[in-house]
């Protein structure tokens, strides 16, 4: 393994906006290094930022005793980013549809929607306590999103 970079990097971070920014920047660097185009770099880093915001704000509620972990892996065929929190858990089935007419003018509730729009796969796993979000972008896939 001498001379090879580790395929997966994991950070354990406090529940702060600084952590969100660090995770976002790491995702951007990872995507850039993987050679994806500028539009997908934006989409990936934004999706990861939204997942980190979700973990810090909605999951851990800025609790200084709770941590967020963020792992980044380039498998060669996929970029895989996992974000976990130690909050009460998130059931994606209960999230209101932000595109429904009655929700369009809500001031929040678009984060998970944007993550799903910008990534090729999004998986939720309950950790009891906490939630793990796995975000996957297929390398070489056709552009997603708008």
């Amino acid at each position, binding site marked *: 393994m001498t001379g090879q970079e580790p395929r997966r990097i994991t950070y354990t971070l406090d529940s702060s906006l600084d952590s*969100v920014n660090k995770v976002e920047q790491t995702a951007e660097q990872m995507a850039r290094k993987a050679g994806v185009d500028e539009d997908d770099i934006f989409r990936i880093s934004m999706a990861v930022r939204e997942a980190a*915001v979700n973990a810090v*704000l909605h999951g851990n509620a800025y609790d200084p005793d709770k941590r967020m972990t963020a792992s980044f892996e380039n498998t060669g065929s996929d970029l895989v980013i996992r974000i976990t929190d130690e909050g009460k858990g998130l059931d994606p089935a209960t999230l209101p549809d932000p595109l429904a007419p009655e929700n369009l003018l809500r001031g*929040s*509730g678009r984060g998970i929607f*944007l993550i799903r729009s910008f990534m090729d796969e999004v998986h939720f796993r309950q950790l009891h306590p906490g939630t793990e979000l796995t975000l996957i972008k297929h390398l070489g896939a056709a552009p997603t999103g*708008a």
Partner: protein
Amino acid sequence: MSMKISTRQVDGVTILDLGGRITLGEGSVQLRDSVRDLLAKGQKKILLNLGDVNYIDSSGIGELVSAYTTVRNQGGELKLLNLTRKVHDLLQITKLYTVFDVKDDEASAIASYARG
């Protein structure tokens, strides 16, 4: 990482020139406070110039929506000017592009506000 914001008046319309990032934390709060201050001063014709906004997250999008509804509920008008492609795409994806009155020319945007 923060947002820059400056205010000017043109023909009774208050233009907020925004630049940088509108995200959870500083940018969103700055925008909210600015709009609230304008409404408190009775300035209800507000044009948000987003030409130099290079990044907005879901919190920033939510703040734009909240600003729009707050101004409208007080009998005012809030419009958007000079969307970058990224912001334009985000408003399309979230189906908000047709909710907002979006302009791409400042003079015609100013002229579009109701007189009086």
